[in-house]
């Protein structure tokens, strides 16, 4: 094979030219730029509905919440972001600490979102809820044996608990909420107790913990409710068997069910503030709220929003932890340190 240096250099020059030539076409339609840590296909349906309704074009970047925050910091005043969306209150808190949001006083938001699910100064709010709950084996566990999150740390369940790793943000936010509820010492004892009860090294995601219960590897697990709902709503026969073998307990006793949010806010350096406001309010419309409930099995934040989802209905009403989700961010670092101290991998 003859590769001449000249031809290689020529090829390189062509490629470089192609890369430079690839500039974004400026067109006349109004655009809204969203930085989102959500990457569900169903979000495209929400964006589409907004575009149809307003004629505003949406462009997105989807990446992990931490990467989005770093990108916005690097962008600085030249940031292209109008709206920022994350799937965890802790990340919203941190973005707010870094000054990446601007406040938006909206009657619609104040009216439709419960106070515990929005930032005290209107920097961001939750538009969909996820509950972190206890999955248990229908066969080997009786529901009245579960009396809140404390149960997971009870020595009675030695070698019977499955949980994913502590690097996972859902676990961190739960412990952050428990720190607020019980104080540092009790919360750390709880984490220590759960670690002692591990049936196996934490690995895999929430769905894998649910399958492990069905297969008999463990009896209790900590999972987000929508993973179970997804299995239960599946048409696959094997999934149905898993859903039949496992049930969810919403630990209301002693403080309520831990709830986290998918949240959004207006970027500090947004170019198109009006469109951002429109979009945020659209997220709270009955139409969008229904999509979250029906497509991703999340709970709508708007109590009155109608939807059809038999599995969610089957879970019934529950008492949520009244703590403001902003606290999850404040306690996040301490929660991670606690996990490190008790050796929760």
């Amino acid at each position, binding site marked *: *094979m003859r*590769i*001449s*240096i000249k031809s*290689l*250099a020529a*090829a*390189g020059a062509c*490629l470089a030219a*192609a*890369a430079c030539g*690839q500039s*974004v076409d400026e067109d006349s339609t109004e655009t809204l*730029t969203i930085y989102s840590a959500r*990457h*569900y*296909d169903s979000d495209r349906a929400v964006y589409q509905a907004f575009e149809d309704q307003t004629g505003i074009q949406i462009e997105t*970047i*989807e*990446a*992990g919440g*931490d*990467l*989005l*925050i*770093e*990108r916005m*910091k*690097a*962008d*600085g005043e*030249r940031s*292209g972001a109008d709206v920022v969306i994350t799937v965890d209150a802790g990340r919203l808190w*941190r973005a707010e600490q*870094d000054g990446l949001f601007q406040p938006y006083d909206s009657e619609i938001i104040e009216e439709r979102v419960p106070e515990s699910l929005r930032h005290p100064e209107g920097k961001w709010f939750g538009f969909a809820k996820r509950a972190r709950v206890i999955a248990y084996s229908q066969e080997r566990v009786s529901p009245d044996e579960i009396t809140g999150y404390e149960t997971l740390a009870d020595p009675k369940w030695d070698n019977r608990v499955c949980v994913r*790793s502590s*690097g996972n*943000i859902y676990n961190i936010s739960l412990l952050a909420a428990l720190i607020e509820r019980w104080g540092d010492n009790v919360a750390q004892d709880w984490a220590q107790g759960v670690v002692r009860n591990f049936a*196996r*090294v*934490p*690995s*895999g*995601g*929430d769905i*894998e913990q649910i*399958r*492990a219960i069905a*297969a008999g*590897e463990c009896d209790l697990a900590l999972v987000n409710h929508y*993973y179970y709902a997804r299995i239960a709503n599946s048409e*696959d026969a094997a999934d149905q068997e*898993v859903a039949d073998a496992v049930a969810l307990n919403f630990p209301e006793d002693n403080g309520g069910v831990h709830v986290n949010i998918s949240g959004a806010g207006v970027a500090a350096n947004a170019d198109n503030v009006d469109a951002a406001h429109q979009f945020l309010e659209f997220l709270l419309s009955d139409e969008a709220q229904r999509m979250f409930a029906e497509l991703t099995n999340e709970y709508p934040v708007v109590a009155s929003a109608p939807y059809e989802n038999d599995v969610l209905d089957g879970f019934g009403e529950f008492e949520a932890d009244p703590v403001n989700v902003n606290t999850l961010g404040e306690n*996040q*670092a301490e929660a*991670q*340190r606690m996990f*490190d101290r008790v*050796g929760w*991998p």
Partner: protein
Amino acid sequence: MSAAVSSRLGRSARRVTAAGPRPVALAAAIIIILPIAALVVLAGSGDFAYLRHLADTRLLAYVRNSVTLGVLVTAGTCLTAVPAAWLTARYRFPGRAFFSWALALPLAAPAYVTAYAYASLTTAGGPVYEASNGLVPAVRGMGGAAFIFTLALYPYVYLLARQAFVSQAAHAFDAARTLGAGPMESFWRIGLPLARPAIAAGVALAVMETLADYGAVEFLGAPTLTAGIIRAWTSFGEAETAARLSLILLLATCFAFAFERGVRQGRGFAQSSGRDRPNERVPLSLRGAGIAILFCSLLLGLALIVPAGRLIWLAFDTPGVRSPVPALLNTIQLASMSAVIAVLIGLGSAYAIRTGGWLSVTAARAAQTGYAIPGAVAAVGVLALLGFLQRVLDGGLGSAAPVVTGGSLIALLFAYQSRFAAAAIGPAEAALTNVSASLDAAAQTLGAGPGRIIRRIHLPLISGGLGAAGLIVFVEVMKELPATMILRPFDFETLAIMAHNYAADERLAQAALPSLMLIGLGLPAMIAVSWLATHNRKRRTAR
């Protein structure tokens, strides 16, 4: 100088090509190390509270896991790839031609995809778990991680080692036979020592990628130092601490490979070609062929057919996935552009190292270290650098300044080079090591200038190695996640991002199709490399 094995490169010979691509290499290397420099600046800020906490709690476990995994993956890749390379390069047996290129294919499967596939097979509820009643251990923890990384990364060692074995001259083996050495002895005393730089380069790539991986170790529950690095950032928002820990990881990796290089020093071999003739493949006995086929099939089966088969099964079972075609086209565009650029940089750096001089060697080595940094942190380094550049531009040009922090292919291509140039420099250097300095000297005596020496002598001899280097970069860029995610233009998706997004949402079945396309994209690339290698051989036969 004996027929095939010559002494280490002489000083005078080193200077021959000095005027060549050295300035190019220097410039490229400096551009590449800028993001690392940005990380160093970042690491200098912030406080040490988290580091102290980590030292009190889990640092030891993280480091222990990293070292263990590095050692296991070194052993695993060598024990699988070196025999496979030796067999397909030196022997004739049915299926050899197929295995020789197919064994490189698993490189197209990202480690995290292989991990997802094996986990879904072997954990509770999976078909293997059900069929064996839970007797086959689930792929998880340190053992599982070593298993996955060996399968996902052995092709690095295989590709480079095979290239080295194929290009080894027959004289040395003839001489060994004359002196009564059997096949095993000629492997241990000639084949292996001659291929050592190539094997070391391959192992270096495999281990660096293992240590910098986050997705698979987090999923499998084998927390290495990188898990700690990412946590410093995601749980504490301390990009500074993450940068600091990354630099520690980077230094440790550098020391490890500097040590290897030190041990190798003084045992450098170059082959004189001259009236060389190519190595004939030795036919294997029936039993030998059986063992060879079994070994190669088992390796290929475990690394590619089992996980890909699981993905195909899942993909068929899954309704309604978005069309992956736009993502496919984007992936091809990014990966091929990066491969061409990386080969140019790799070639330049390899020459810089060959011609010596502390500045060029240091620059080229520094450019290689980018590979040892976790992808997410490297992406932060690029972002920090671009942010700085943006402020400089804004200061000079005001609002007329172009936006450079993201959303352009240039930024993305730059990030890829800073991270993956190592994948091209190592192999290019290894290929060049096999070109004897006496060839340069001979050509020079005949009046050939450096450019002519490179064109007429070096390039034909090393094009196979360069092809492998380009391929590796192509595949790496194809699989890359964090930098692509954060620096890509709006609404721009790649196959890796698609697969990752589905998998991160625990929708493995939907991740199956883009993952399969990633593997499919690697196929023609691998065949091209195989073609390059055989073509090279034929040309040498003709000469």
